[in-house]
């Protein structure tokens, strides 16, 4: 019974000692070993490691790329326009010992970066116009900020991989103005489309009217010509025929004229002996 207690006791003891001697570093971590507060190793990668029990202790530090998101802030551009900018940064700890000595925790590193990046972003954006910040030179600005911040954080054992401006918006009151301008631009465009439509329509209609008028005028012209030709031909035919005996035509035509003109409601005064009544004498 006593030997069992001894065995169990010694087992527990050796387990505790073993746990003090052995430690693992995860794939997402890196470690430094401190002996009574003094660093005694270079950076240790993931895996199983040994240390002296009780006098050495291990500090585990994240080796991954860490995000830091800044809250949005108003920044002035070169032409003193206000932009609401928010950015994020990707960074990691490349020298855990320096990091441990200067900052110690990720939270403090973030606070430090907040100050630095905020200032750098302000400086960088302040030397560009709004148009450049929003469109053409955004990548360039971010590269400048990244390299500047990188210089500054070297002593902390940090590496800035990327500072990226996420949102570049206008303050609400400017937004209102932009909306107003956008609206008026569109209204102008809509008006243009409609009046272009009316212009086009008037052109088409008047062209059609013009064509119709010309068409009818041409037709009338041709029609008069044809009628004239007909009259001329008829006249020629008449004169050719009648010319053969003008006195007979005069006689015939007079008779016909008498027939047509002397009827109801006419009063004829005749004297006997003349013409028709010559036998009445």
């Amino acid at each position, binding site marked *: 019974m006593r030997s069992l207690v001894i*065995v169990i006791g010694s087992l527990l003891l050796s387990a505790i000692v073993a746990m003090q001697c052995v430690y*693992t570093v995860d*794939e997402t971590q890196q470690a430094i070993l401190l002996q009574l507060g003094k660093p005694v190793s270079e950076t240790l*990668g993931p*895996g*199983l490691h040994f240390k002296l029990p009780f006098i050495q202790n291990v500090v585990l530090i994240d080796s*991954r*790329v860490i*995000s830091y998101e800044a809250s949005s802030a108003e920044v002035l551009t070169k032409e003193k326009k206000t932009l609401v900018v928010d950015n994020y940064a*990707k960074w990691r700890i490349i020298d855990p010992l320096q990091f441990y000595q200067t900052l110690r925790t990720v939270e403090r590193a973030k606070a430090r970066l907040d100050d630095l990046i905020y200032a750098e972003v302000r400086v960088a954006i302040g030397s560009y116009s709004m148009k450049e910040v*929003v*469109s053409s030179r955004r990548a360039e600005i971010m590269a400048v900020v990244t390299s500047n911040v990188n210089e500054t954080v070297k002593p902390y054992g940090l590496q800035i991989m*990327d500072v*990226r401006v996420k949102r570049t*918006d*206008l303050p609400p009151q400017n*937004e209102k103005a*932009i*909306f107003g301008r*956008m609206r008026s631009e*569109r209204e102008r*465009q*809509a008006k*243009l*489309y*409609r009046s272009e*439509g009316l212009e*086009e329509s008037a052109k*088409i*209609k008047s062209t*059609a009217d013009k*064509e119709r008028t010309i*068409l*009818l005028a041409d*037709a009338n012209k*041709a*029609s*008069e*010509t044809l009628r004239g030709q*007909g*009259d001329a*031909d*008829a006249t020629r035919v008449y004169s*050719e*025929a009648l010319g053969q005996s003008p006195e007979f035509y005069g*006689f*015939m035509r007079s*008779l016909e004229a008498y*027939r047509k003109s002397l*009827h*109801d*409601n*006419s*009063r004829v*005064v005749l*004297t*006997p002996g003349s013409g*028709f*009544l010559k036998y*009445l004498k």
Partner: protein
Amino acid sequence: MNWDWEKLQDKRQRQFGSGPDFKGLGDEFKRLSEFNFNIPGGPKVIFIIVALLWLASGIYIVEPGEVGVVKRFGAYDRTTGPGPHYHIPFPVESVLKPKVSEVQKIEVGYVTAGMKQDGSFQYRGVPEEALMLTGDDNIVDVQFIVQFQIGDPVEWLFRLQRPVPTVKAAAEAAMREVIGNKTIDSVLTSGKLEIQNTTKELLQSILDRYNSGVTVVAVQLQDVHAPKDVMEAFKDVASAMEDKDRFINEAESYANDILPKARGQAASVLNDAQAYRESVVRKAQGEASRFLAMLAEYNKAKDITHDRLFIEAMEEIFSNPDLEKIIMSDEALKHAVPYLPLDRQGRVKSGDKGGK
């Protein structure tokens, strides 16, 4: 990345090449089992069962679409494909099984708020994400999704803290950068495909820089429109374009209406004229031939025909009972002339008579 990787491999070799940890463990085992032998009965059996269970806990199954990533003492050791596998049990090795085939989706500018009763989804816009400045100082409302897969499971698991929010933030930054280089008209109309492709490329390059292990499958614009405040004006432009087309169509239909009618009218005018010409000519010809025919007969017996025609005509005229005839001698005529009622009385009288 490369130097990092080699260093890790190096370290692993140094640490595990000789495998001192296993020997250490083996020794402890031996001691334990020797110790157990001295205890009669149950404990030995219990120990064997516990040991077997412990060994069995190393069996793991990788489902299709997953990979098994095995860590030995925290360090990445190997990647295994789908199927059953074995790893040295806790605390030596552990396994992670990320779903590499699964396409994950991130929504930017809106969130899916839930499902309606009819099964369709309900969306809610997130204006602070969606409103973006364009290169020509306008603002658009852009909603899009990013589909991505885990391209490199090791990078995905170990190289980046919080990979999913990273993808979202990077996607937002990339989209804003791309939209910032476009005009509002190209964003709203023809430029969408290009925006998707450019953003996808840019996003992939950003994520590669972070060693995120993410493969961007697609960036898809969902709803791109003018901001709510100016939506009406934008819609009005569209309807103005329609109006323009309508005006033109109406004018064309007017033209199509009147021109054929006018052509018809012109043709009818011409035909009338032609008909007139032909008819007057024919009439003249007819009358001429009638005259010529009569003339031929007249020439044969001029005097008698002359008299006959004259008398017949007079007979016809004077046989009309309504023709008022007054016969008076030359003498009477000489005296009567001044008293002839050459006013309208006689006509009226005879008109009255005729009326009755």
